[in-house]
Protein backbone atom coordinates (compact mmCIF):
# COMPACT_ATOMS: atom_id res chain seq x y z
CA UNK A 1 0.00 0.00 0.00
CA UNK A 2 2.80 2.35 0.96
CA UNK A 3 4.55 1.42 -2.26
CA UNK A 4 1.51 2.41 -4.29
CA UNK A 5 1.18 5.68 -2.41
CA UNK A 6 4.81 6.65 -2.92
CA UNK A 7 4.74 5.69 -6.54
CA UNK A 8 1.61 7.76 -6.97
CA UNK A 9 3.46 10.70 -5.50
CA UNK A 10 6.18 10.34 -8.09
CA UNK A 11 3.69 9.93 -10.90
CA UNK A 12 1.79 12.97 -9.77
CA UNK A 13 4.97 14.94 -9.60
CA UNK A 14 6.15 14.10 -13.05
CA UNK A 15 2.76 14.31 -14.69
CA UNK A 16 2.39 17.98 -13.97
CA UNK A 17 0.97 18.51 -10.53
CA UNK A 18 0.96 22.22 -11.17
CA UNK A 19 -1.72 21.99 -13.81
CA UNK A 20 -4.86 21.57 -11.71
CA UNK A 21 -5.35 20.75 -8.04
CA UNK A 22 -8.72 21.11 -6.37
CA UNK A 23 -9.23 22.04 -2.76
CA UNK A 24 -10.19 18.54 -1.58
CA UNK A 25 -7.12 16.92 -3.13
CA UNK A 26 -4.85 19.58 -1.66
CA UNK A 27 -6.34 19.22 1.81
CA UNK A 28 -6.00 15.44 1.63
CA UNK A 29 -2.33 15.84 0.69
CA UNK A 30 -1.87 18.26 3.55
CA UNK A 31 -3.46 15.90 6.08
CA UNK A 32 -1.23 13.04 4.91
CA UNK A 33 1.81 15.29 5.17
CA UNK A 34 0.94 16.24 8.76
CA UNK A 35 0.59 12.54 9.61
CA UNK A 36 3.95 11.68 8.03
CA UNK A 37 5.74 14.44 9.95
CA UNK A 38 4.08 13.42 13.22
CA UNK A 39 5.13 9.83 12.59
CA UNK A 40 8.71 10.98 12.06
CA UNK A 41 8.58 12.84 15.37
CA UNK A 42 7.32 9.72 17.14
CA UNK A 43 10.16 7.78 15.52
CA UNK A 44 12.57 10.12 17.32
CA UNK A 45 13.74 11.75 14.10
CA UNK A 46 14.57 14.90 16.08
CA UNK A 47 17.45 12.92 17.55
CA UNK A 48 18.45 10.63 14.71
CA UNK A 49 17.54 12.58 11.55
CA UNK A 50 17.23 16.24 12.62
CA UNK A 51 18.08 17.76 9.22
CA UNK A 52 15.40 15.74 7.43
CA UNK A 53 12.82 16.50 10.10
CA UNK A 54 13.63 20.22 9.92
CA UNK A 55 13.21 20.13 6.15
CA UNK A 56 9.86 18.33 6.51
CA UNK A 57 8.71 20.98 8.98
CA UNK A 58 9.80 23.76 6.60
CA UNK A 59 7.82 22.19 3.76
CA UNK A 60 4.81 21.77 6.02
CA UNK A 61 5.06 25.44 7.02
CA UNK A 62 5.12 26.41 3.33
CA UNK A 63 2.08 24.21 2.71
CA UNK A 64 0.29 25.85 5.64
CA UNK A 65 1.07 29.29 4.23
CA UNK A 66 -0.38 28.16 0.90
CA UNK A 67 -3.48 26.86 2.70
CA UNK A 68 -3.93 30.28 4.30
CA UNK A 69 -3.65 31.86 0.86
CA UNK A 70 -5.98 29.23 -0.67
CA UNK A 71 -3.37 28.42 -3.27
CA UNK A 72 -4.25 24.74 -3.66
CA UNK A 73 -1.58 23.94 -6.21
CA UNK A 74 1.14 25.16 -3.87
CA UNK A 75 -0.50 23.29 -1.00
CA UNK A 76 -0.29 20.03 -2.96
CA UNK A 77 3.32 20.62 -4.01
CA UNK A 78 4.63 21.51 -0.55
CA UNK A 79 2.51 18.87 1.18
CA UNK A 80 3.91 16.17 -1.10
CA UNK A 81 7.41 17.34 -0.28
CA UNK A 82 6.68 17.39 3.46
CA UNK A 83 5.17 13.91 3.28
CA UNK A 84 8.05 12.27 1.46
CA UNK A 85 10.65 14.11 3.56
CA UNK A 86 8.86 13.00 6.73
CA UNK A 87 8.98 9.42 5.45
CA UNK A 88 12.71 9.84 4.81
CA UNK A 89 13.25 11.15 8.36
CA UNK A 90 11.45 8.09 9.74
CA UNK A 91 13.54 5.74 7.61
CA UNK A 92 16.81 7.36 8.64
CA UNK A 93 15.76 7.30 12.28
CA UNK A 94 15.02 3.59 12.01
CA UNK A 95 18.39 3.05 10.34
CA UNK A 96 20.34 4.86 13.05
CA UNK A 97 18.51 3.15 15.90
CA UNK A 98 19.07 -0.27 14.34
CA UNK A 99 22.76 0.46 13.80
CA UNK A 100 23.21 1.69 17.38
CA UNK A 101 21.54 -1.39 18.82
CA UNK A 102 23.61 -3.68 16.60
CA UNK A 103 26.82 -1.92 17.60
CA UNK A 104 25.93 -2.50 21.25
CA UNK A 105 25.39 -6.22 20.67
CA UNK A 106 28.62 -6.37 18.66
CA UNK A 107 30.54 -4.90 21.61
CA UNK A 108 29.03 -7.56 23.83
CA UNK A 109 30.02 -10.35 21.46
CA UNK A 110 33.55 -9.00 21.08
CA UNK A 111 33.89 -8.80 24.85
CA UNK A 112 32.67 -12.37 25.28
CA UNK A 113 34.99 -13.65 22.55
CA UNK A 114 37.89 -11.94 24.25
CA UNK A 115 36.91 -13.34 27.64
CA UNK A 116 36.54 -16.87 26.28
CA UNK A 117 39.96 -16.95 24.72
CA UNK A 118 39.84 -14.50 21.84
CA UNK A 119 39.35 -14.94 18.15
CA UNK A 120 36.25 -15.33 16.12
CA UNK A 121 34.40 -18.59 16.31
Amino acid at each position, binding site marked *: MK*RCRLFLIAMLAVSGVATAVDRDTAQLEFTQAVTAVQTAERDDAARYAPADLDEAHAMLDSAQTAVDGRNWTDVAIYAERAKVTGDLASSRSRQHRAEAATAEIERTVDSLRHQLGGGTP
Partner: protein
Amino acid sequence: MKTNNRNWILACAIATLVAACATVPPGPPPDVVRLQNDLDRLHTDPRIANNAGPELANADAAVDVLARNSRSLDARSYQQGVYIADKLVGIAEATALARYAEQRGTQLGVERDQLLAQERVETRTTTVVTDAPPARIITEAPPRIAVRTDSGELVPRARAELMAMQDQMPGVESRLDARGLVIRLGDFMFEPGRAELTPTAEQSLDTVARVLRSDNDAGIAIEAYGQDGLALRRANAVRDYLDARGVEPGRVSARTVSYSTRGIAENDRRVDIVIRSDLR
Protein backbone atom coordinates in the same frame (compact mmCIF):
# COMPACT_ATOMS: atom_id res chain seq x y z
CA MET B 1 22.15 29.40 -61.85
CA LYS B 2 19.38 27.03 -60.78
CA THR B 3 21.95 24.48 -59.65
CA ASN B 4 23.72 27.12 -57.56
CA ASN B 5 20.45 28.07 -55.86
CA ARG B 6 19.62 24.44 -55.14
CA ASN B 7 23.05 23.85 -53.61
CA TRP B 8 22.69 26.98 -51.53
CA ILE B 9 19.27 25.89 -50.18
CA LEU B 10 20.58 22.41 -49.45
CA ALA B 11 23.57 23.83 -47.59
CA CYS B 12 21.30 26.07 -45.53
CA ALA B 13 19.03 23.12 -44.69
CA ILE B 14 21.96 21.01 -43.55
CA ALA B 15 23.38 23.86 -41.51
CA THR B 16 19.99 24.40 -39.84
CA LEU B 17 19.68 20.69 -39.07
CA VAL B 18 23.17 20.54 -37.57
CA ALA B 19 22.48 23.65 -35.49
CA ALA B 20 19.20 22.19 -34.25
CA CYS B 21 20.89 18.97 -33.25
CA ALA B 22 23.64 20.88 -31.49
CA THR B 23 21.16 22.79 -29.28
CA VAL B 24 19.55 19.61 -27.90
CA PRO B 25 21.91 18.20 -25.28
CA PRO B 26 22.34 14.46 -25.54
CA GLY B 27 20.95 12.21 -22.84
CA PRO B 28 18.93 13.01 -19.71
CA PRO B 29 19.40 16.19 -17.62
CA PRO B 30 22.17 16.24 -14.96
CA ASP B 31 19.73 15.81 -12.06
CA VAL B 32 18.37 12.65 -13.61
CA VAL B 33 21.88 11.36 -14.31
CA ARG B 34 22.78 11.95 -10.67
CA LEU B 35 19.70 10.08 -9.50
CA GLN B 36 20.48 7.21 -11.88
CA ASN B 37 24.04 7.07 -10.54
CA ASP B 38 22.70 7.00 -6.97
CA LEU B 39 20.43 4.12 -7.89
CA ASP B 40 23.31 2.25 -9.55
CA ARG B 41 25.27 2.64 -6.33
CA LEU B 42 22.38 1.22 -4.30
CA HIS B 43 21.98 -1.73 -6.66
CA THR B 44 25.68 -2.61 -6.47
CA ASP B 45 25.86 -2.40 -2.64
CA PRO B 46 25.07 -5.92 -1.41
CA ARG B 47 23.80 -4.61 1.94
CA ILE B 48 21.17 -2.63 0.06
CA ALA B 49 20.48 -4.84 -2.95
CA ASN B 50 19.90 -7.87 -0.71
CA ASN B 51 17.53 -5.94 1.57
CA ALA B 52 15.95 -3.72 -1.05
CA GLY B 53 12.22 -4.40 -0.79
CA PRO B 54 9.54 -2.21 -2.35
CA GLU B 55 11.28 1.04 -1.46
CA LEU B 56 14.04 0.50 -4.03
CA ALA B 57 11.45 -0.49 -6.64
CA ASN B 58 9.62 2.78 -5.89
CA ALA B 59 12.80 4.77 -6.37
CA ASP B 60 13.61 2.91 -9.61
CA ALA B 61 10.13 3.61 -10.95
CA ALA B 62 10.21 7.28 -9.98
CA VAL B 63 13.59 7.93 -11.59
CA ASP B 64 12.56 5.98 -14.68
CA VAL B 65 9.36 8.00 -15.10
CA LEU B 66 11.31 11.20 -14.56
CA ALA B 67 13.97 10.23 -17.11
CA ARG B 68 11.37 9.43 -19.75
CA ASN B 69 9.39 12.64 -19.20
CA SER B 70 12.08 15.13 -18.23
CA ARG B 71 12.09 16.90 -21.61
CA SER B 72 8.34 17.37 -21.77
CA LEU B 73 7.72 18.65 -18.24
CA ASP B 74 7.45 22.30 -17.30
CA ALA B 75 10.14 23.57 -14.96
CA ARG B 76 8.06 23.38 -11.78
CA SER B 77 6.83 19.85 -12.36
CA TYR B 78 10.34 18.76 -13.26
CA GLN B 79 11.76 20.22 -10.04
CA GLN B 80 9.02 18.54 -8.03
CA GLY B 81 9.79 15.23 -9.73
CA VAL B 82 13.50 15.55 -8.96
CA TYR B 83 12.78 16.45 -5.33
CA ILE B 84 10.47 13.50 -4.77
CA ALA B 85 12.64 10.99 -6.63
CA ASP B 86 15.65 12.17 -4.62
CA LYS B 87 13.82 11.50 -1.33
CA LEU B 88 12.59 8.10 -2.55
CA VAL B 89 16.19 7.11 -3.28
CA GLY B 90 17.12 8.20 0.26
CA ILE B 91 14.23 6.20 1.73
CA ALA B 92 15.31 3.11 -0.22
CA GLU B 93 18.87 3.40 1.07
CA ALA B 94 17.97 4.07 4.71
CA THR B 95 15.32 1.36 4.86
CA ALA B 96 17.59 -1.28 3.34
CA LEU B 97 20.45 -0.36 5.69
CA ALA B 98 18.06 -0.53 8.66
CA ARG B 99 16.97 -4.02 7.59
CA TYR B 100 20.60 -5.03 7.17
CA ALA B 101 21.47 -3.77 10.69
CA GLU B 102 18.42 -5.47 12.19
CA GLN B 103 19.31 -8.81 10.58
CA ARG B 104 22.90 -8.49 11.69
CA GLY B 105 21.74 -7.63 15.21
CA THR B 106 19.60 -10.76 15.27
CA GLN B 107 22.54 -12.93 14.15
CA LEU B 108 24.84 -11.35 16.70
CA GLY B 109 22.21 -11.84 19.40
CA VAL B 110 22.20 -15.59 18.69
CA GLU B 111 25.99 -15.65 18.83
CA ARG B 112 25.95 -13.70 22.10
CA ASP B 113 23.55 -16.20 23.67
CA GLN B 114 25.79 -19.07 22.58
CA LEU B 115 28.87 -17.35 24.01
CA LEU B 116 27.09 -16.60 27.27
CA ALA B 117 26.07 -20.25 27.58
CA GLN B 118 29.65 -21.29 26.83
CA GLU B 119 30.94 -18.82 29.41
CA ARG B 120 28.63 -20.25 32.10
CA VAL B 121 29.76 -23.81 31.32
CA GLU B 122 33.44 -22.86 31.43
CA THR B 123 33.07 -21.01 34.73
CA ARG B 124 31.24 -23.95 36.32
CA THR B 125 33.82 -26.45 35.02
CA THR B 126 36.72 -24.42 36.31
CA THR B 127 35.16 -24.19 39.76
CA VAL B 128 34.52 -27.92 40.02
CA VAL B 129 37.88 -29.15 38.73
CA THR B 130 40.22 -26.75 40.39
CA ASP B 131 38.11 -25.68 43.33
CA ALA B 132 39.46 -22.24 42.60
CA PRO B 133 37.81 -18.95 43.55
CA PRO B 134 35.77 -17.11 40.91
CA ALA B 135 37.47 -15.64 37.88
CA ARG B 136 38.16 -12.37 39.63
CA ILE B 137 40.33 -13.16 42.64
CA ILE B 138 39.93 -10.87 45.59
CA THR B 139 42.10 -11.69 48.52
CA GLU B 140 40.18 -11.88 51.77
CA ALA B 141 42.37 -9.84 54.09
CA PRO B 142 41.21 -8.56 57.46
CA PRO B 143 40.83 -5.84 58.42
CA ARG B 144 38.42 -5.49 55.48
CA ILE B 145 39.27 -1.97 54.51
CA ALA B 146 41.30 -2.68 51.41
CA VAL B 147 42.00 -5.77 49.33
CA ARG B 148 44.40 -6.74 46.61
CA THR B 149 42.99 -7.80 43.25
CA ASP B 150 44.45 -10.55 41.10
CA SER B 151 46.39 -7.88 39.21
CA GLY B 152 48.09 -6.85 42.46
CA GLU B 153 46.24 -3.56 42.68
CA LEU B 154 45.36 -2.46 46.23
CA VAL B 155 41.86 -1.00 46.23
CA PRO B 156 39.21 -0.22 48.83
CA ARG B 157 37.13 -3.27 49.54
CA ALA B 158 33.88 -1.73 48.38
CA ARG B 159 35.43 -0.83 45.06
CA ALA B 160 36.97 -4.26 44.67
CA GLU B 161 33.54 -5.80 45.15
CA LEU B 162 32.16 -3.60 42.42
CA MET B 163 35.04 -4.58 40.13
CA ALA B 164 34.27 -8.24 40.75
CA MET B 165 30.65 -7.56 40.00
CA GLN B 166 31.59 -5.78 36.78
CA ASP B 167 33.57 -8.83 35.68
CA GLN B 168 30.41 -10.89 35.95
CA MET B 169 28.62 -8.66 33.44
CA PRO B 170 30.49 -9.23 30.18
CA GLY B 171 29.10 -7.23 27.33
CA VAL B 172 27.03 -4.94 29.50
CA GLU B 173 28.12 -1.33 29.04
CA SER B 174 29.43 -0.38 32.47
CA ARG B 175 32.12 1.60 34.18
CA LEU B 176 33.30 2.48 37.63
CA ASP B 177 33.14 6.10 38.66
CA ALA B 178 32.74 8.10 41.85
CA ARG B 179 29.11 7.00 42.11
CA GLY B 180 29.93 3.29 41.96
CA LEU B 181 29.45 0.72 39.22
CA VAL B 182 27.40 2.46 36.56
CA ILE B 183 25.48 0.46 33.93
CA ARG B 184 24.39 2.65 31.09
CA LEU B 185 21.21 2.13 29.10
CA GLY B 186 21.39 4.48 26.12
CA ASP B 187 18.33 6.09 24.58
CA PHE B 188 18.32 3.43 21.88
CA MET B 189 17.73 0.79 24.58
CA PHE B 190 14.16 2.09 24.79
CA GLU B 191 11.51 2.29 22.11
CA PRO B 192 11.62 5.79 20.57
CA GLY B 193 9.88 8.31 22.77
CA ARG B 194 8.52 5.58 25.01
CA ALA B 195 9.48 3.75 28.22
CA GLU B 196 9.33 0.23 26.76
CA LEU B 197 12.65 -1.62 26.87
CA THR B 198 14.07 -3.06 23.67
CA PRO B 199 15.04 -6.75 23.51
CA THR B 200 18.68 -5.67 23.69
CA ALA B 201 18.05 -3.77 26.92
CA GLU B 202 16.18 -6.72 28.38
CA GLN B 203 19.08 -9.03 27.68
CA SER B 204 21.49 -6.62 29.38
CA LEU B 205 19.16 -6.30 32.37
CA ASP B 206 18.86 -10.09 32.62
CA THR B 207 22.62 -10.21 33.15
CA VAL B 208 22.50 -7.34 35.65
CA ALA B 209 19.66 -8.99 37.59
CA ARG B 210 21.54 -12.29 37.74
CA VAL B 211 24.54 -10.57 39.31
CA LEU B 212 22.44 -8.49 41.69
CA ARG B 213 20.57 -11.57 42.91
CA SER B 214 23.88 -13.11 43.92
CA ASP B 215 24.85 -10.05 45.96
CA ASN B 216 22.10 -9.00 48.32
CA ASP B 217 24.17 -6.26 49.94
CA ALA B 218 24.53 -4.00 46.95
CA GLY B 219 22.12 -1.08 46.76
CA ILE B 220 20.85 0.14 43.40
CA ALA B 221 19.96 3.66 42.29
CA ILE B 222 18.30 4.14 38.90
CA GLU B 223 18.95 7.58 37.44
CA ALA B 224 17.01 8.61 34.34
CA TYR B 225 18.12 11.74 32.53
CA GLY B 226 15.51 14.31 31.54
CA GLN B 227 12.97 16.51 33.22
CA ASP B 228 9.74 15.21 31.78
CA GLY B 229 7.51 12.29 32.61
CA LEU B 230 9.29 10.05 30.11
CA ALA B 231 12.47 9.95 32.21
CA LEU B 232 10.56 8.85 35.31
CA ARG B 233 8.58 6.25 33.34
CA ARG B 234 11.83 4.83 31.99
CA ALA B 235 13.38 4.70 35.46
CA ASN B 236 10.30 2.88 36.75
CA ALA B 237 10.35 0.51 33.77
CA VAL B 238 13.92 -0.52 34.62
CA ARG B 239 13.05 -0.92 38.31
CA ASP B 240 9.98 -3.02 37.46
CA TYR B 241 12.00 -5.21 35.10
CA LEU B 242 14.63 -5.89 37.76
CA ASP B 243 11.84 -6.57 40.27
CA ALA B 244 10.32 -9.11 37.88
CA ARG B 245 13.73 -10.77 37.61
CA GLY B 246 14.03 -11.27 41.36
CA VAL B 247 15.86 -8.14 42.48
CA GLU B 248 14.27 -7.04 45.76
CA PRO B 249 12.43 -3.74 45.15
CA GLY B 250 13.47 -2.41 48.56
CA ARG B 251 17.06 -2.29 47.31
CA VAL B 252 16.18 -0.11 44.34
CA SER B 253 15.51 3.61 44.21
CA ALA B 254 14.46 5.40 41.01
CA ARG B 255 14.77 9.09 40.27
CA THR B 256 15.23 11.55 37.44
CA VAL B 257 18.28 13.74 36.92
CA SER B 258 17.93 17.19 35.35
CA TYR B 259 20.14 18.21 32.48
CA SER B 260 21.64 21.02 34.52
CA THR B 261 23.24 18.39 36.72
CA ARG B 262 26.78 17.25 35.88
CA GLY B 263 26.76 19.07 32.53
CA ILE B 264 24.58 16.50 30.78
CA ALA B 265 23.68 17.26 27.17
CA GLU B 266 20.01 18.19 26.79
CA ASN B 267 19.29 15.43 24.29
CA ASP B 268 20.84 12.74 26.45
CA ARG B 269 17.96 10.43 27.40
CA ARG B 270 19.99 7.64 28.97
CA VAL B 271 19.23 5.72 32.14
CA ASP B 272 22.06 4.85 34.52
CA ILE B 273 21.86 1.99 37.00
CA VAL B 274 24.26 2.83 39.80
CA ILE B 275 25.37 0.00 42.07
CA ARG B 276 27.14 0.79 45.30
CA SER B 277 27.92 -1.61 48.07
CA ASP B 278 27.29 1.14 50.66
CA LEU B 279 24.03 2.42 49.20
CA ARG B 280 21.70 0.51 51.47
